[in-house]
């Protein structure tokens, strides 16, 4: 059964020159234990797509469903990690992590133990009472991650989560995200990552959805059949990166040999 089903989604916005189409006819599925990455040039609507999926915004046409239920309000079984971290400067690390749990009206004791668990899972022990501005970028994004994981979402949505970090920090945080993902004790069931970094997508995901420039449509869905941990220097990794790169720059005309055609259902 598909966890998320996106069917023929269009999105356009009104502007002074009439309506601008952001994406056209987007269809794909996310299954249980899928790690899916969405890549594409800037402005192709990747982040908008993520917001449509959680229900923060609505598609102009088409439909999105989660466990066969249409998503028409903010879906509480999904949690988002933001590019800008979106931490509240007036709340401590612990309070920020508790943020989503408070919305669920849990008892203070239950919130407390849950917060402790995810603070330690994300390596934030000892920083409970710190304020976000006292932390480095990498630590801040750990808080963002802990906040999202603490609500134990079925789907973790990550919107360019490593883009605001320096390369070394980003690399180590990517490794940790992978470790968390492979821990069967921990949520989520599926991850949807938006990135403009092709290598990052291939390093992390089981499947990479390649979007065209605006208006975004799916150029290809590329399966990544490499065992983890993946070696960025291997020729297989390099070939795949090159293929995705060509897809984006050439608009998807060539390079169809090992990729599935646009919009086809995923094999998982």
């Amino acid at each position, binding site marked *: 059964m598909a966890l998320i089903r996106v069917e023929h989604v269009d999105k356009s916005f009104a502007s002074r020159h009439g309506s601008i189409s952001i994406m056209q006819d987007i269809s794909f599925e996310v299954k249980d234990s899928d790690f899916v990455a969405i890549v594409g040039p800037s402005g192709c609507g990747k982040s908008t797509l993520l917001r449509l999926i959680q229900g923060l915004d609505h598609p102009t046409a088409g439909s999105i469903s989660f466990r066969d239920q249409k998503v028409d309000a903010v879906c509480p079984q999904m949690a988002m990690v933001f590019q800008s971290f979106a931490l509240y400067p*007036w709340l401590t690390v612990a309070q920020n992590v508790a943020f*989503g749990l408070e919305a669920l009206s849990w008892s203070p004791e239950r919130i407390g133990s849950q917060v402790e668990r995810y603070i330690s899972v994300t390596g934030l022990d000892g920083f409970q009472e710190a304020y976000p501005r006292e932390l480095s970028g990498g630590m801040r994004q750990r808080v963002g991650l802990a906040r999202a994981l603490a609500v134990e979402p079925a789907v973790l949505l990550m919107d360019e989560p490593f883009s605001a970090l320096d390369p070394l920090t980003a690399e180590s945080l990517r490794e940790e995200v992978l470790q968390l993902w492979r821990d069967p004790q921990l949520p989520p069931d599926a991850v949807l990552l938006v990135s403009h970094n092709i290598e990052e997508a291939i390093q992390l995901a089981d499947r990479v959805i390649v979007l065209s420039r605006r208006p975004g449509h799916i150029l290809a869905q590329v399966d990544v059949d490499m065992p983890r941990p993946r070696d960025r220097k291997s020729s297989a990794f390099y070939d795949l990166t090159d293929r995705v790169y060509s897809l984006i720059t050439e608009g998807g005309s060539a390079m169809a040999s090992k990729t599935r055609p646009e919009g086809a259902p995923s094999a998982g």
Partner: protein
Amino acid sequence: MAGGARIHLTAQGDSALSLVEPASPGPSTGTLPPAAPSKIRWSRPATLLYLAIPLSIGVLAASDPGFTAAGLASYLPTATVDVSYSFLRMSAAYLLSLAFALSYGYYAAAHRTGERVMIPILDILQSVPILGFFPIVVLVLYNLQPSGFGPNLASVILIFTSMSWNMVFGVYESLKTVPSDLREAADTFGLKGWLRFRRLLFPATVNRLVYNSVLSWTGGWFFLVEAEIFTTNGAALPGIGSFLSFAASGHNTEEFLAGLIVLVIVIALLDFLLWRPLGHYAERFRFDQAPSGEGDPILVAGTSGRFRRAASYVTRGVRTGVSRLSTPLVQLAAITVRPSRHPSARRQAVIYHLSLGTILVLVWLMLIAIIVAVYTVFSGTIMPSVRAQMLMLPLAVGFSMGRLVIAYAICLAIALPLAILMARGPRARRLGLPIVEVVASFPATALFPVIIFELVPYISPEGAAILMLMTGMIWYLFFNLLSGIRSIPPDLEEAARSFGLKGRKLLRRVLVPGVFTALITGSITAFGGGWNTLIVAEYLNVGSGQSLSVLGVGQLIDIGYAEHADGGYPLMVAALFALIATVIIVNELIWKPLYRRAVERYRYD
């Protein structure tokens, strides 16, 4: 009002929380270039609403049985001539302020030594209630030249004092906050002289300058009425301020409404033809792309005065003295204070409460010192009646403070819900904001005679005084809160939505902390406006044997001025110094620490 709505929020009509529509188009993903439609859409109802204001004034006219439209029209020519006089006076004062702001601001920002003296001086000047200058300026200039030029010059200078300080701070602060990379880029390319001014310094200041100019004109209109009446004993200067005041004291509804209509039209025209286009033009010179934590520059204008040298010595001395004295007291008081989880927090709370008490004691000591000083200076000439009034000074300051606090509380109760409504509802904002803008820039002082004639029987002199104080306070609060709510970063708002926070939790966790800094700055500027208004709100003679007089420091200044020929001069001086000392002490020991703490804890970065 720049467009730049974050599209995926505005596109969704039923959002639980679409409170953010940043003033600048953010570079974040998922946004499009500024959305123009919102601008086009709201201008039409706005135009209608501008027309609706004179219309509603007309409805009020119907309450006067002797009222005829022809009668009203017959006053329009005189009103138009008078408003032109006032406009000329305002323009002269504004040009003076502009020249002063540019030269003073540029010099202070460019020269370290000059800065050290100039900025503290300016900080004192801006904390002194503007109306406090009135008696001194008037007495000096009037004595120099009793007719024609003298009173006019006095009036222009008085308007100047209400316009210039915030413009100087605007220039100075925007020059000091030019991003260092832009400054360095100009250095590496060797930009100097005129080119440097045109490419770096002018763009750096123009945005703040336009914004603060609007504020200055609003302030100028507010004090215009006083500036045209105050200057002369008997024969007032021709102008819309004196026109309105005479109409009101003569109970002439037709004349009063004619003046009101002409004034509203002039203010609205200025807004449409000058400030809006200028604001649009200046918008392109913004350095920051993302909404800053302090919201609009307006917030900083009134508050970030630097009192570096002169006053910080005094306050530091006082503070160390206070803390040394209070340590044993703190331990004593700690027992009575509600236990808190963190001992350090409890200690802080205790110190804070104790120092509030200390501040009051300090104000009182200062007052006594002033009274004693004035006594010695004027020892020979003080009359018994004046002496009695002078001894009332400490009580008067207390009454004035109480009145301000009550007016502030009512203002907050009105402004906060209004600001939330307008920040969160695009429709409410589109329809309501133009009205609020015109009403806010309309000089409430012109209506003070009406308040006294019509409302005193219902709400007592005390109520009328508080109502008048509110007109001088509420807009600072409202506009600060509005921009504060709107400058909560969009990603924080979106995260709240993403995690499903609603209702009271949303209020407690996001909205209230998000506007806290704006609330503090709004409160500081509102109290600044309130101290100013005290001088007209506590004592006002509106002719026809009617006047309002309630015990307060503003009243004592006015009485001293009115009787300056009969020995009231010492009273005026003492009351003026008492007012200035109180304002400075309260600013330094309450507002500035509070502001610093708010910025530290609640800024976004």
